[in-house]
């Protein structure tokens, strides 16, 4: 597929990748013409996409290793700023003139659902409590049967006497 695409587009993809275009694109150093060209070639060359993803992955790991937490007041400033942000009008959003909703139209690609992490703790707590109640229920049931057996021999003669 790549060979055919290379012939069709006239691009030697190996040379193209060696030109530093991937790094330029990911770091925002590419010119607008280079960006257009790169984005046109990207769907046709899986190796280009793989190389981009690999570079992004390493860049993100490096950034995680070197992150500096911002001062706490920055978060408060940002929360204040976000409170003052106006709602996004539909007409300003690309391709959403006909939609009245303010949510992004996103296609679901995964069969999994994700929930807030607090549900993990709640689920564990509910599970443990359920087990405790089950054990208690069995225990009290056995206690009840034991007590009933102890009462039964006493109750039987009383019936006979009557």
């Amino acid at each position: 597929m790549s060979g055919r695409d290379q012939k069709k587009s006239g691009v030697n993809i190996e040379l193209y990748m060696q030109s530093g275009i991937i790094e330029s694109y990911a770091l925002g150093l590419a010119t607008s013409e280079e960006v257009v060209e790169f984005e046109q070639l990207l769907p046709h060359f899986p190796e280009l996409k793989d190389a981009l993803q690999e570079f992004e992955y390493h860049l993100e790991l490096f950034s995680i290793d070197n992150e500096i937490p911002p001062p706490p007041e920055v978060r408060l400033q940002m929360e204040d700023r976000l409170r003052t942000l106006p709602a996004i009008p539909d007409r300003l959003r690309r391709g959403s003139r006909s939609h009245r909703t303010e949510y992004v139209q996103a296609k679901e690609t995964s069969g999994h659902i994700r929930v807030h992490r607090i549900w993990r703790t709640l689920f564990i707590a509910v599970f443990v409590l359920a087990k405790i109640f089950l054990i208690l229920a069995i225990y009290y049931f056995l206690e009840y049967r034991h007590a009933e057996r102890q009462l039964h021999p006493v109750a039987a003669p009383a019936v006979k006497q009557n």
Partner: protein
Amino acid sequence: MPANLSLFIARGGEILAILEKTIAKDILKSELYPGGRPAAELLYARYSGMLYSYILQFVPDRKEAGALLVDIFSRLTTQLQDAFDSPLSIYCWLQVESRKIILENIQNKGVGDVAAGAGLVKGPKAPALYFSLLEDAPPEHQWVFRELFIYGRTKEELAIQSGKDLGYVSRILRECLGVIRKNLG
């Protein structure tokens, strides 16, 4: 065997820690309400530290960098549909867009401030981040990368200033990017 097991567990912990720090687009999409608090909070929780150190490369003053971070988050959280449309990862998109805002901010302040910023960036206490990847590169390479990346100048401008041809500047940049890739990997 127990040593291998503990190493495996430690490595697994590291990977989980990394996964906790990164957001795939589908996760963000599922939690997104553009411009609203959930998306902004999610992005801030994950990327504020990374972007703050990124901004410090351009603006070493921490107070100013903090104000820029606020500005960047409040602007970019309303444009997240563009992030989904982009072939870039969320983090790379954030940093590319952040750089545009930072350069715009620096240019609005005027040339004098840019020059002052240059002095600070070159100072010994200035955070290096990407420049730490170019420590082994010759000074000329570091200069070209700094001018293009930090000051947003064009290759044409650098070629004229240095009296070299455009191909020469492009070659230097290509070598810089090669060094960065090598040191990242």
